């Protein structure tokens, strides 16, 4: 094999390896829990367009959910209660509906009487920015717009991810900063 052919083969092997390495890196990425929260805009089910950055100065809770997700249902009522309890204290809740048919999502919101901002994650772009692996996942954003931790499962007394009490304590701590 002449030198040119060897070079072509070598560059192909290197290219293929780089391709697989990129794929593996993307697969191994974990959800961000610190640093600037990726900004996004969301059109809510009632037609408003909101942007995360417009809530700078407030605590923001971003919750990814889907109507087919049973653990999401387990935390839904609590999240609504928490929102009602904290909305006057400078806390904003944003529900991001992930990979869900719209009619089912609307039914879910009605079923749990959810009143905080909620919209569809079109093209799952927000989910990709936050590198979520599934639902439910919840992210805390501080007043400065930085991420202040995340919860990679449901907020229930027995889930082992975070209990409702711990969640409320976290909100209090963030508010007191």
């Amino acid at each position, binding site marked *: *094999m002449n030198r040119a*052919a060897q070079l*072509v*083969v070598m560059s*192909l092997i290197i*290219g*293929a390896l780089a*391709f697989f390495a990129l794929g593996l890196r993307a697969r191994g990425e974990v959800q961000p829990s610190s640093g600037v929260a990726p900004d996004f805009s969301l059109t809510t089910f009632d037609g408003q367009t909101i942007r995360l950055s417009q809530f700078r100065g407030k605590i923001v809770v971003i919750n990814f959910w*889907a*109507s*087919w*997700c*049973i653990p999401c249902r387990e935390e839904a009522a609590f999240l609504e209660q928490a929102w009602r309890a904290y909305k006057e204290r400078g806390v904003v809740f944003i529900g991001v509906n*992930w*990979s*869900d*048919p719209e*009619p*089912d999502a609307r039914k879910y919101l009605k079923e749990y009487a959810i009143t905080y901002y909620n919209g*569809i994650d*079109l*093209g*799952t*772009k927000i989910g*990709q920015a936050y590198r979520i692996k*599934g639902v439910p996942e919840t992210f805390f954003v501080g007043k400065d717009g930085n991420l202040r931790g995340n919860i990679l499962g449901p907020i229930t007394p027995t889930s082992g991810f975070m209990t409702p009490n711990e969640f409320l304590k976290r909100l209090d701590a963030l508010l007191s900063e």
Partner: protein
Amino acid sequence: MRDFKSKVQSPKSNASPKSTVHSPKSRFASFTAFAALASFASFALFASPAFAQGPNLDDQVNRISKELYCPVCPNTPLDVCDTLACQQWRALIKDRLQKGESEQQIREYFVAQYGNRVLGAPPAEGFNWLAYILPGVALIVGGAAVWATARRWRATRADRAMLAQSPPLAREYSERIEKELRESSN
């Protein structure tokens, strides 16, 4: 009346003309039979699209489902996945088909709504082209490399065979030349 009776009577029939007379009872029976036939025909005519749509629609749902992937289970197409998410997605496909959308429109809707990851293969654009091109190029280059190596091996084997068949003196010279060449290269 007689003429009529002869018309309705089968030419080969040996039955008496009386047997072909339509009594009020038999006329009622014929009318009932006709009405039943007509209603069945009209039912079949109008209802057949709905009957035909059932299996056809399911086939379409399955065809689209085969090409879309579950949002929860890795590498599982919708048509074989039993999660609630996939059930909902299949229902959504059916709903959109019933609304008159084409299969392509539904695929596009799913990509717009849920991203490229719902597809079995990445769309052929930008960096994704590599995924389509690399295997083909690797196959061609690999094949060329195998062919070149095989050719070289065959040539070496032919040389050796020729050497083995040559007279002893020539072989002696050849071996000596090879030995000296090896020594000089060391």
